[in-house]
């Protein structure tokens, strides 16, 4: 039953390409999918990449601008805060005489005034040329402390002014020192030293109101933090970032990656101080940033790609399918042409032979007739009856020969499809008649299982003859000497007449059964062309019918031919 389904050929599914053609189409399909996908997706990918870089570029520019703005604003403010206090000390030392300064109460007044006007001054001390702090006002016991061996003191003596790095004072709070040198009337230098609380500086940073990814702080040239940093730690801890040396540029912006984050840093030097202002902005790595920013775009991309994929797959499938069908049709056409040529050649040969034989047959016939006439008019001829017998026998033989040539010519004439009303029973008997000799020779029994009524179809006689000749021939070839072939007609269906040809021969293996309708498939070895059943199938398709087969090896084979009662095929 299964194999019957498989070999149903009216659907046209049994294909020549089944065994060898399919990988070729699969390759073709793969190639077409890949090329189309590349063509469709590459511009999309390029656009995405361009978008990514543009986005990154604008993001970077934005960061740079942001940092640059914070840098310049903060630098100005910080410089102002430091300069204000520096200028105050500078003014005091140049305007107030040494004598006025060398008085604890005087100093105290000055410190109070300074804090009243500016704020941030912690203490004030006067140091003589030998480094002794002779006068001091402030919270610590620093009076009499000697600074002679300290570097800053010597620097002040040489340069006239000094602003120190930040250090932790006795109160454990960060401070820095501003010191100026001046000369007494006798030319002896002295130094006025003020400690300034970093709180003044910190306030500037608090007021910046930065987002949580941005950090601003001061660092000295050795990379030691002068104010607390969010990213790098508390005051006086070292940062592991290369601190720029004094560049000519006032601002430097650097970018680097740190722990998966992208850091953009800007530096600015605070004039006349050892402080470097640093603004650092941390952000996600560019791809993640882009991804978060453009989630919509990303999904659009995915959906587009998926859509393109689906369309391309479908389109390619359709194209390849169509191609496959066209190829199949072409193969069938070639096959038909071959078949037609072959049949035309056979037809020409048959008609040639028939004509050549017909003439001498006619002569034999007439000569025998003449012999008959002569004997008829010679009443006294001895053994006259014997003559009649002989000439009659000759004429009968000639008639038999004529029938053969008649059939041959009929066969040759019926190469083209021609619609006519055909008596199926008569047609089948005629086809079997062609092979009478073989039947007798091999003692094959043919049983007709025909319904009593006449079964008519409108079809092409020659082509149907060809179909049954082939199938019945196959049946005869399949059975042994003394085998049976049953030819049946099922006329119960209103649309088609089903002719079955059943033999009790060797049968066909399931493997072979799948291929018997394919061209050039033959089990007869060198004796078969492998075209017979393929042509038969094609003819039945041409006649709008179909053919199927079921078989069991060792038990026999049944071919069912479905002839439409009214064929709509093109003549």
């Amino acid at each position, binding site marked *: 039953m299964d194999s019957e389904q498989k070999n149903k050929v009216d659907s046209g599914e049994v294909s020549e390409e089944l065994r060898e053609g399919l990988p070729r189409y699969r390759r073709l399909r793969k190639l077409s999918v890949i090329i189309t996908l590349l063509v469709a997706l590459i511009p999309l990918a390029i656009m995405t990449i361009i978008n990514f870089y543009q986005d990154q570029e604008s993001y970077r520019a934005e960061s740079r601008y942001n940092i640059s703005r914070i840098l310049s604003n903060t630098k100005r403010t910080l410089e102002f805060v430091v300069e204000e206090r520096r200028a105050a000390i500078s003014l005091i030392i140049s305007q107030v005489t040494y004598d006025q300064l060398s008085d604890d109460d005087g100093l105290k007044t000055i410190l109070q005034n300074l804090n009243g006007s500016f704020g941030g001054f912690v203490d004030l001390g006067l140091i003589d040329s030998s480094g002794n702090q002779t006068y001091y006002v402030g919270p610590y016991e620093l009076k009499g402390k000697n600074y002679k061996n300290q570097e800053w003191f010597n620097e002040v003596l040489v340069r006239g002014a000094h602003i120190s790095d930040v250090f932790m004072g006795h109160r454990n709070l960060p401070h820095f020192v501003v010191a100026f040198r001046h000369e007494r009337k006798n030319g002896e230098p002295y130094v006025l030293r003020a400690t300034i609380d970093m709180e003044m500086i910190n306030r500037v940073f608090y007021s910046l109101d930065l987002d949580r990814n941005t950090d601003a702080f001061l660092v000295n040239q050795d990379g030691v933090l002068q104010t607390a940093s969010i990213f790098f730690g508390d005051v006086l801890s070292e940062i592991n970032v290369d601190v720029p040396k004094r560049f000519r540029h006032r601002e430097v912006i650097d970018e680097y990656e740190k722990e998966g984050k992208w850091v953009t840093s800007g530096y600015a030097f605070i004039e006349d101080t050892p402080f470097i202002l640093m603004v650092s902005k941390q952000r996600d790595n560019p791809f993640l940033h882009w991804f978060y920013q453009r989630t919509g775009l990303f999904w659009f991309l995915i959906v587009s790609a998926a859509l393109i994929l689906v369309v391309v797959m479908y389109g390619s499938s359709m194209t390849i399918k169509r191609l496959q069908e066209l190829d199949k049709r072409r193969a069938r056409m070639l096959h038909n042409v071959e078949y037609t040529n072959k049949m035309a050649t056979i037809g020409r040969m048959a008609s040639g032979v028939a004509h050549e034989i017909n*003439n001498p047959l*006619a*002569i034999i*016939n007439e000569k025998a007739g*003449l012999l008959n006439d002569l004997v008829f*008019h010679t009443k006294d001829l001895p053994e006259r009856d014997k003559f009649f017998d002989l000439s009659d026998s000759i004429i009968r033989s000639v008639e038999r020969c*004529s029938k053969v040539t008649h059939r041959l010519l009929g066969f040759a004439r019926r190469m083209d499809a021609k619609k006519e009303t055909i008596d199926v029973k008569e047609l089948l008997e005629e086809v079997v008649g062609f092979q009478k000799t073989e039947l007798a020779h091999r003692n094959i029994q043919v049983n007709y299982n025909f319904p009593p009524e006449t079964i008519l179809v409108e079809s092409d006689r020659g082509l149907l003859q060809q179909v049954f000749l082939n199938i019945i021939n196959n049946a005869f070839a399949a059975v042994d000497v003394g085998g049976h072939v049953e030819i049946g007609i099922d006329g119960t269906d209103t649309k088609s007449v089903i002719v079955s040809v059943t033999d009790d021969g060797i049968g066909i293996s399931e493997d072979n059964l799948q291929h018997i309708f394919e061209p050039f498939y033959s089990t007869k070895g060198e004796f078969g062309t492998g075209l017979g059943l393929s042509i038969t199938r094609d003819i039945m398709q041409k006649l709008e019918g179909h053919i199927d087969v079921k078989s069991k090896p060792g038990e026999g084979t049944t071919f069912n031919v479905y002839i439409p009662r009214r064929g709509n095929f093109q003549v």
Partner: protein
Amino acid sequence: MSKFKVLFVDDEEELVSTLVERLKYRDIAGAYELNGASAIERLRREKFDIVIIDLKLPGISGAETTRVVKQEHPELPILLITGHGSPLETEEIPKGIEDILPKPIKLDTLVEKIQTVLRQE
């Protein structure tokens, strides 16, 4: 005495000579020519009641011969013989002929046909 006189135009001499001989037994006088030219020639010299022409002739074709004969002897009935299996598509059938008989020629059919045609005359 023969009732009718028939001229066969056919290149198969063995066949026509036998036919002519057999017709004699059926009271029909016959003669034959092997090609169109000699048949046209003979018809100018001799009178026949009916002409039977094979369409396939060497030299002038059967159809051409028929046209000439019909032109020269409009009243003369003509029967054509055509080879079985060779459809008439190649040969244009000349007008004015009585009938076309397929090969192989059956003597009885032929005699009957001749009698039918000539009885109408």
